[in-house]
């Protein structure tokens, strides 16, 4: 029995599709694999050895990057900025989104449209007046200044995501809580926030990625090496260790790997968060 024409055709088509998809996949993964591989080699072996997986795994590059390359400081700074900014955004944005969705006060809709407009109008170069203002307020080279700026960066989209979610949520539970004598703040804390967990997860992941990967404001606002986050530190490091590829790649891996791992674990939320920016379009 020969397989009929249709089977052959569909088999060929599927194989071709897989070849295409696999090629692109390898092009995505290979640079990242090469980065990790090279971070485990030494300056002597890196241009000599050709095996995909090096014979001797050399972890000392990570120690050099962590101590001499100042990565211990950068890494902790990035953690501090990410956690504080995300925490700030969740509190501020969920309070505002709750009010925009559930509470009534004059000017409410105008204010909400203002946030929406900010999200849709591109503002390249807004860092110029921002830098001028931060200088005047003496917030340059302070953690607080950078954190506040970054809270503002993620605020509009987060308010939008949360408000859309609150709008769709039935208000039965809130009514019950109100009848039981809960105040607004108690309803926000005990009812609205727990119910909004899926939306909050999207907001957290989206903003955490954003802060971890942020470069331009960190460059403008933080000149003190002790205050720099990873991305900024990486550029300083890149200048100092340019010929020392194994150490440089160890630095890159330390910056990139946490994000890749978080992405692999929280894949659904990230995809949702990144594409929800487009819902407005």
């Amino acid at each position, binding site marked *: 029995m020969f397989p009929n024409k249709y089977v052959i055709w569909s088999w060929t088509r599927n194989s071709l*599709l*897989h070849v*295409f*998809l696999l090629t692109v996949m390898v092009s*995505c*993964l290979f*640079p990242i694999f090469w980065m990790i591989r090279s971070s485990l080699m030494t300056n002597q072996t890196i241009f000599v050895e050709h095996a995909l997986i090096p014979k001797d795994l050399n972890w000392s590059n990570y120690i050099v990057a962590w101590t001499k390359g100042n990565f211990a400081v950068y890494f902790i700074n990035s953690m501090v900025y990410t956690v504080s900014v995300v925490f700030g955004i969740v*509190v*501020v944005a969920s*309070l*505002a989104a709750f*009010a*925009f*969705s*559930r*509470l*009534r006060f004059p*000017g*409410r809709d105008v204010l909400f449209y203002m946030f929406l407009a900010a999200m849709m*109008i*591109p*503002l*390249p*170069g*807004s860092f*110029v*007046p*921002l830098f*001028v*203002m931060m200088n005047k307020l003496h917030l340059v080279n302070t953690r607080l200044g950078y954190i*506040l700026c970054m809270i503002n960066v993620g*605020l*509009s989209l987060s*308010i939008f995501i949360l408000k*859309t979610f609150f709008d769709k949520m039935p208000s039965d539970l809130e*009514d019950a809580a*109100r009848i039981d004598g809960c105040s*607004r703040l108690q309803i926000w804390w005990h009812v609205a926030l727990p119910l909004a967990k899926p939306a909050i997860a999207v907001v957290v992941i989206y903003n955490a990625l954003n802060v971890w*990967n942020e*470069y*331009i404001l960190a460059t403008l606002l933080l000149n003190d090496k002790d205050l720099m986050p990873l*991305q900024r530190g*990486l*550029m300083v490091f*890149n200048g100092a260790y340019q*010929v020392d*590829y194994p150490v*440089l790649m160890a630095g*890159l891996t330390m910056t990139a790997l946490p*994000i*890749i791992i978080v*992405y*692999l674990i929280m*894949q659904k939320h*990230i*995809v949702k968060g*990144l*594409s929800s920016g*487009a819902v407005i*379009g």
Partner: protein
Amino acid sequence: MPVMADTRDFSKGPLDAFKNSLFVVPAVLIFSVFYIYPFFNLLWLSFHQWQGIGPMIWVGFQNFQGIAGDKVWWASMGHAAYITLIALTFQNALAFALALACDREIRMKRFYCMVFFIPPVLSEVVVGILWNWVLNAGQQNGQNIGLLNYFLVQTGLPNLVHNWLSDPKTALTCIAVVHSWKGFGWGFIMLLAGLQTIDKQYYEAAKVDGAGSWSSFKNVTIPMMLPVIMVVVILTILGSMQVFVLILSLVNQGLVYHTEVPVTRILGSMFTTNQFGYACAQAVIFGAILVVVSFGMKKLSNSIKQA
């Protein structure tokens, strides 16, 4: 625009309204200080000559006149437009092809989707430094440091060894390709999500009417996907025109004329020549162009929809 949810709570009088409004105070405060004030200050500064310190001199439209004749500025705009053009064609075509390939019963679909989205979650600094090594033209002990050049020598194509990032002819294309590498997965996810919302009945109906795969692609897929495609196009334009961190980390030579883009020009006006007023005027012009382009695209997509 979502319909405002019915408000049935805490709305008896002015005191309630006041208490309600307290919820948005932190957000509005942060937004006013870090967005609205800088926004108006940007407009205000663009009419001044100012060195960052010292007196501000009102110069009217002089900065804008200066920009109109600033050849480097318009060249930088051209560079960004070139990167955007490659992103729009090459990157989006790749994203669309991949989305079409994954929008069918095919093995390892979830795995492909997972991998394609890894480059978009990496930072521009990481991507730039990583690809700088690939495209590097330096040599050590007579051996190519850059992986691409090394690969070309090993495969017997030493004639193609090239100074990829320093040669003005190839630098921008390299930037555009790396930018596309970082960005295509994101377009892929959006387009795939769009494809999956198309009701399979339409395809069956087209088949019954005797449509082949090309005809059903042209008459079902494309029209149904138009809104999503337009969103991807607009976001690609906005993202690619404003690219610059990738350039700083990829080219790694400071600001060089042939890889200047508008944002690096604005930074240059600010820190290299201390012309804060001029930098603001550049930002205003660039922002205005982006707004006009993105709203133009939106208008265009609406008119196609109605036609």
